[in-house]
């Protein structure tokens, strides 16, 4: 039986964005690398310290989800220089999320965490979109203005 499919975020969702870097997600060290790459790029392009902390924390949440719940995935950073936005896409081939609204609500946790991660990431990022299908994976897109 083929795996249920879902539409991952791809170029068509991103518009005129340039791929800056791509990161494999497997260990907690990879989460740090991904987060630092985002923070470094934002700082270099004049984002405020608060904005960097917020977005880097949101990134930390979603890549940690991919690593802890889906056994890893991939993380890409895109930039739109004209509109001055930074977009990140994180995807995995994990178990997916059955009820996205529930997963986004505070206090809901599937694995003993605080249950604030996904909802918190949504509040911290400027734009937050999620696509997921059970047993297929999860793909999260987040953007921030530079």
């Amino acid at each position, binding site marked *: 039986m083929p795996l249920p499919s879902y539409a991952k975020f791809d170029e068509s969702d991103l518009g005129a964005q340039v791929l800056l870097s791509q990161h494999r997600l497997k260990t907690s060290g990879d989460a740090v690398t991904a987060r630092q790459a985002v923070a470094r790029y934002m700082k270099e392009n004049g984002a405020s310290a608060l904005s960097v902390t917020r977005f880097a924390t949101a990134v930390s949440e979603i890549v*940690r989800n991919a690593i802890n719940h889906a056994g890893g995935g991939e993380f890409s950073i895109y930039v739109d220089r004209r509109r001055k936005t930074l977009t990140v896409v994180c995807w995995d081939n994990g178990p997916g999320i059955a009820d996205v609204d529930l997963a986004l609500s505070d206090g809901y946790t599937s694995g003993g965490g605080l249950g604030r991660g996904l909802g918190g990431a949504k509040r911290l990022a400027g734009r937050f979109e999620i696509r997921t299908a059970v047993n297929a994976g999860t793909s999260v897109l987040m953007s921030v203005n530079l």
Partner: protein
Amino acid sequence: MMPQSATANILTVLDTDFKGIIEEWLGTQVKEGVKRSDLFSDAESRNQNRELLKAFSKGIREGVAGEDFDLDDDKWDDLRAVLADVSRERVNRGVTPTEMATFVLALKTPLFKRLEALADSDHSMLLRDVMLVTRLVDAFAIYTNEIFINEREQIIDRQRQEMLELSTPVVELWDRVLTLPLIGTLDSARAQEVMENLLQTILERQAEVVIMDITGVGTVDTQVAQHLLRAAAAVRLMGAECIISGISPMIAQTMVQLGIDVGTVSTRSSIRTALSDALLTVGYVIKKTEAQ
């Protein structure tokens, strides 16, 4: 006259002019700029080259069957052992992999010259010998590089271990007051180590107040927050008070947005205020001296 074995000429060359080859090998190293006279004395270099060449010719004598050889074979034990020593020393003194490989490859020239003299215009024999020497020395150089990389990886690994230990010191600031300056990223493995270390020290020092300072923690996401709050809860279970200090305005705002509730854990913006609170708890005050 064709010799019986493929290595006969090479061995003849090595046996008849062992010293000359070493001197010329050293000379080539000087010419190529890979003889590090800043790092090794002449005597040391000569000694290393002699040991290497001795082991190399022993390997050729015993470890080449027909034209085949495998440096992983027992017959090459000596060369591998000497090479390991030399590489280790060079890595520790800061020699680069390129310098190390060029150092080994420099052995070709002196050997080629002597084989040419020996071949006496028998070109097919010379070609065969040169090809074999090339394969041998190349394998030698590749092996050297492998050892070199392994050696570096071990250094990196050792440093990582050291850093892990360094990054979780529990410091006794005053009688019954401990502080734990956290730096970098708090992943689950480190959080566990920090917690064990901290609880043990509370017991040993009979601590009453513990200050966990997160000034050096760049990102507090839900996982880091959870580790901190768990550590704080464990500290309280042991009868001590826990203060989390060093929460920057950025981190405070981010934590609020994440919806992290620190509950009854005391928090302070700086370690300075945390310290004066902690001292007060154990019955001390910091006072200016009269003279000032």
